[in-house]
């Protein structure tokens, strides 16, 4: 239960971090908040030759507003997100979801970049990135690129990062006016990973849904969007029967696994129930929020 030996580098900027990653040829690990990496090191599930500590890179933890988006630096701690007035104003669904991440001591240290890069299949922030169609900025010694959150999560704990790349920024396009949201999660104990969770945004115009987004986590190897259920909703007003059809579409679209925490059937059941609740909340908030930007 002690980490194996490794070399340790404190990166002072992103350039030195990615240069160190390139030198290590994929054998390095980035140490951000350490709330997933450190347990894996303690268990000796990982044996990196070198740890590149990015915690002291100035300016990598920030929440900034542009006219049409909110930019979040990869080193932004969960507690910063949880208490950010910018996030509360523009993405209340994210404020709500991040309060469900781990416990206070974990939220004080854990980072959004770390959570997305680690990609636990039942984590809340990867699901939020997928729900909100985040754009991720990634740098390496070879240059920089962007990738859509939808294309980033490849498999359980496997993302579109090649071991010499560093996720630096998450960009969220602001939501249209009259967008309501819902977030629902079932856990055995507050702060645990979700047995299942569902989140939704509904953008309304004249009591009709013009855009629907539904994301789920804990029901497959990666967070996912329920495209079928989303398309069912568009052009309609939400009611109980439409909700039931969306729930059925979600249950058909997912293939959850059985593990020691819950059976596949139970997870499928939960995913439907939580989707129904999240949609009802999103509809209610969207209707109430007619003037909101």
């Amino acid at each position, binding site marked *: *239960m*002690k*980490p*194996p*030996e*490794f*070399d*340790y580098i*404190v990166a002072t900027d992103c350039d030195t971090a990615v240069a160190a990653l390139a030198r290590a040829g994929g054998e390095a690990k980035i*140490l951000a908040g*350490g*709330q997933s990496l*450190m*347990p894996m*090191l*303690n*268990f000796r599930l990982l044996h990196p030759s*070198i*740890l590149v*500590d990015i*915690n002291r890179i100035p300016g990598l933890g920030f929440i900034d507003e542009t006219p049409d988006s909110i930019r979040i630096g990869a080193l932004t701690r969960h*507690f910063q997100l949880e208490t950010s007035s910018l996030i509360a104003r523009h993405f209340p669904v994210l404020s709500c979801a991040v309060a469900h991440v*781990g*416990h*206070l*001591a*974990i939220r*004080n*240290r854990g980072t959004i970049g770390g959570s997305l890069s680690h990609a636990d299949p039942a984590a809340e922030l990867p699901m939020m990135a997928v729900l909100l169609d985040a754009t991720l900025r990634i740098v390496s010694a070879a240059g920089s690129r962007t990738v859509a959150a939808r294309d980033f999560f490849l498999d359980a704990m496997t993302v579109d990062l090649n071991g010499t790349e560093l996720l630096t920024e998450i960009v969220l396009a602001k939501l249209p006016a009259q967008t309501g949201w819902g977030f629902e999660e079932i856990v055995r*104990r*507050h*702060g645990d990973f979700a047995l299942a969770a569902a989140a939704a945004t509904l953008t309304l115009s004249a009591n009709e849904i013009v855009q629907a987004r539904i994301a789920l986590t804990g029901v497959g190897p990666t967070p996912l969007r329920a495209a079928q259920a989303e398309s069912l909703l568009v052009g309609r007003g939400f009611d109980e029967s439409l909700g039931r059809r969306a729930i059925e579409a979600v249950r058909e679209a997912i293939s959850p696994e059985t593990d020691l925490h819950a059976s596949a059937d139970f997870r499928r059941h939960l995913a439907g129930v939580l989707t129904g609740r999240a949609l009802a909340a999103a509809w209610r908030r969207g209707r109430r929020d007619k003037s909101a930007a």
Partner: protein
Amino acid sequence: MKKTCEIAVTVNGTVYEAAVEPRLLLADFLRHTLGLTGTHVGCEHGVCGACTVLVDSDSARSCLMLAVQADGRSVETVESLGSIGQMNELQESFHAHHALQCGFCTPGMLMTATDLLRKYPLATDDDIRKGLSGNLCRCTGYEHIVKAVRAVVKTGKKQ
């Protein structure tokens, strides 16, 4: 690459300088290098919360931090809260409400509660329970720990 790193960490107001292996956990640095055994080590993978300390005033699990990461930082352990015969308000409340039995989880409970009391209103017992959900206690059933924290919330004093 050198085998050890020179670090200077302020622990409970005193600056300690040491040469440590990069892989040394902050929890082991506190206990073994400095002899501050008030911080307890339970699971060593961030589940039990016993090793919780404050790093630059924010609670953190010291088994999930390297000692080298604390270089230049300020760490507060349970030893900073009070002393025998002169416990702080939160410790007194734990005592008064029988919030510990074997005491193994208590340092982590106290440090977590200290941070919770500073950051959240803790308006309901449910809020306190959620806040303490990352700290395991196998003796008390939590009832008396929640009561102890509740009593401090009611005094309204800053921790």
